[in-house]
Each structure stands twice: as C-alpha cells, then as structure tokens.
C-alpha cells in the first residue's frame, strides 16, 4: 500500500489535505469525487475520457507530471478559464512521485 498526501483546493477556495492511493489506477478527478470535494454532475461529466474539461485544475506545485496527451491538450484548447498551469484531473493518475502535490479546481463551466 502506498498512499500519498495531496492538497486539493475546492471551488470555494477551501484547501483539503487528502490521502490518495497510488495502487488503484485512480486519477485526480476520481480522488476529488471520492472525497466529494465538488458536487456530483459538475466534475467528471464525461467519465474521465478527456472529453469535457469539467475536471480542469491548476497545478500549484512544481511536480513533474505525466506529459500531456494530444487529447488533453486539445480539450484544454476548448476549455474556459485556462491557465498555463491547467491540467485535466482525469489524466493525472496518482503516482508516488506526486506526494505533496497541490492543485486548485478550476471554476465550473
């Protein structure tokens, strides 16, 4: 078992320090849903296929994250409130290297 601790700032600006397993192929969007940090129906709308951008978040730490896929890149090109630090939560699978990661959920759109 290798849990990591990450910080998720919800859409109200409240920071939540949560534990996330790295052995369940969970992604950040699923971690947010499992802790109910965003209302159902407002996150992970497409189920995690990088096709809706409802799980967009801003990465606040300098972690080296998995490279952005073509799908994620083009979905972000159509998303709103995009910043240089934007990623889709559904494409960030929890890995031991993400220990201490801090992200902020982008506004609902």
């Amino acid at each position, binding site marked *: 078992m290798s849990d990591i601790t990450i910080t998720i700032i919800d859409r109200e600006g409240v920071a939540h320090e949560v534990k996330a397993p790295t052995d369940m192929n969970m992604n950040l969007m699923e971690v947010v849903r499992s802790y109910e940090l965003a*209302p159902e*129906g407002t996150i992970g*709308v*497409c189920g995690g*296929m990088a096709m809706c951008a409802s799980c967009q978040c801003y990465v606040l730490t300098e972690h080296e994250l998995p490279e952005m896929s073509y799908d994620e890149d*083009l979905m972000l*090109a*159509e998303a*709103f*409130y995009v910043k240089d630090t934007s990623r889709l939560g559904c494409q960030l699978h929890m890995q031991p290297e993400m220990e201490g990661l801090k992200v902020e959920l982008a506004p609902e759109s």
Partner: protein
Amino acid sequence: MIKTDILIIGAGPTGLFAVFEAGLLKLKCHLIDALPQPGGQCSEIYPKKPIYDIPAFPEILAGDLVNNLMKQIEPFQPGFTLGERAQTIEKQEDGSFIVTTNKGTKHHAPVVAIAGGLGSFEPRKPPIANIKNFEDHGVEYIIRDPEVYRGKDVVIAGGGDSALDWSIFLTDIASSVTLVHRRNEFRGALDSVDKVQELKNLGKIEMITPGEVVDIVGESKVEGVSIKRGAEVSNKACDHFIPLFGLAPKLGPIADWGLEIEKNAIKVDNTLDYQTNIPGIYAIGDVNTYPGKLKLILCGFHEATLMCQSAYQRIFPEKRYVMKYTTVGGVEGFDGSKKEAPKAVVKAIK
C-alpha cells in the same frame, strides 16, 4: 397530445432499454430527449469510444451499443420527441401526468420514467462578461436556421467538429466566415480539418488562430468581437458571433418538479422499483441516486427492468402477472413481428 403508457424522459441506453422491457409487458413507450438523436452521452460525447463492461460484449463502441438498442426495441415501435427538452409536468386527477416540452409538445401517460442521465445537454457558454446581453441579438450557441446568416458576416469560435462543420456549411450562405480558435490544431474529424484548410486556401474562411474572442462589441446587437492574439487585442466587425464549445449536461427544469434532489440527482426511495417521492414518477439510470448507486449502463438496464414491472402493476393494479423469459415466450412486437426460439426437431431412432 401524444398518449403512451410509459413516458420516458431521456433516450440514452437506459431509456432505450426500458422500451424493450416495457414492450415485453405490452406497454407502449414514448421518449423525449433534448438532443436531436437518440443515445444520450453515448451518441453525443463518445460514439467512437469502446465500452468494456457491457455483459457479453467484451468490447463495443458506444455508438454501436445505441444502434443495437435501437434495433432491439424496433418491434415495440417507440415514439420519439427529439430536440425538445421536457419542461413542465402536471399531475392529473386520475394520477396520470402531462409533460410539456420547451417547444410546447404535450405528452400524456400514467407513468413517467426519468432516464435523463446527467441532465439535458445545454451549450457551453464562454465566460465573456457581456455575452448575455447579446444572446439572440447576434450571439447564438446553436444554429437552428442557417438562413439567418445569409449575406451576413459571421464569426465562429471553437475547435471541435461543430465549429468546423458549421464553418464549412456557412461559407455558401454567409457573406464571410471567420473561425477563431485558441490553437492551430483542431479536435474535429480529419476530413473536416482538411476541408477547412481547403476553404482557407481559397479565401472562403478566414482563420484566426491562435486567437480568442474576449469581448463583444455593439449597442443593442452584435456589431463585432474583440479577438485576443498573444498580447494584442483587435476588433473584427461581424453581424453574428457563434461560440461552439460543445454541450454540457444540466439537470434543468426537472429539478423544479417537486422531486427530491440529492447530489444533483433524483433520490429514489427504494431500489425495489426506483420510484421517486412522487408516485408514478420513476428515475432510472445515471439520473437517480440511492445508497450504493453506481452510474453504470448495466445498472441502468437493471433499474429499467424493475421499473417496468412496477409500472405494469401501477397501470393494471387488478392484473396478476409473472415475469416471462424471452427464451420461453419469445418477443411479440407491436408491429406484428414475432421472434421465438425454434421448436425442437424430434427424430426417432428406428
């Protein structure tokens, strides 16, 4: 007024399969969906994506699943009201319901089954501060009548299929078409991208990429848009601005029907029949919530099946019925078709 036995709101996989289960009980169904085609998310968002957890299908494309369901329910001749959103519901004295869509189409049924998934699909609106002031005054999120754009200057924003396809289509109608996207790359079908490239080369489409519409210019109607390219912002005159950023589901008017809502879903009192707090209104598939709920197509199929059994009892309280296996009873369509297991061939040994 459209009359049916079970009025199903939402024509996704769960709603479609409910038609089959209802048909076995000789109940007729009519479906309402805000999208112009059946299939819900499977058709709208991910028709080309494979699904791996449909029992007995090791792999099936979402679009094919919908096609198969449509084939499966064909004998039961379901009615469809597509491209309209269920807006209001009125309970009648006899306990039946009248559901009216946003376009005024009325439907009457003793049972309503809401299979609305995450809600009805609404256009995603870009966060441009003054955009609301121009809605229906030059800003349209959906193209209803392309003739509106004849001889006009049109700016389209977006990077997916609808932005590309409409840009192509409107070149023959509009005076000018400008496509604005934040990237040079597009997410749409490759042949659409090629076609836009061709039209750009011919000077029929002006491409502004990478660019982003950040403001709308005009008094009472759209007179132009401000487009940001890098650090520069410049104005472009136009009559219409059409942002095409896809659709997102919203629970919408159903949330005001007096149903218990929890976590953006309709709470069902029990998992025996998925009836809501209003007797006669059921909620099945992704739209409902109950302890242990899983938003899976296969769970939606199960819920649809139980709902139909309960609906039958509600419509015919005096009748006794036990569930029949299709292998035993076959499938008798409302169209006169009949499918049944072939009879055994008996051959004696002499």
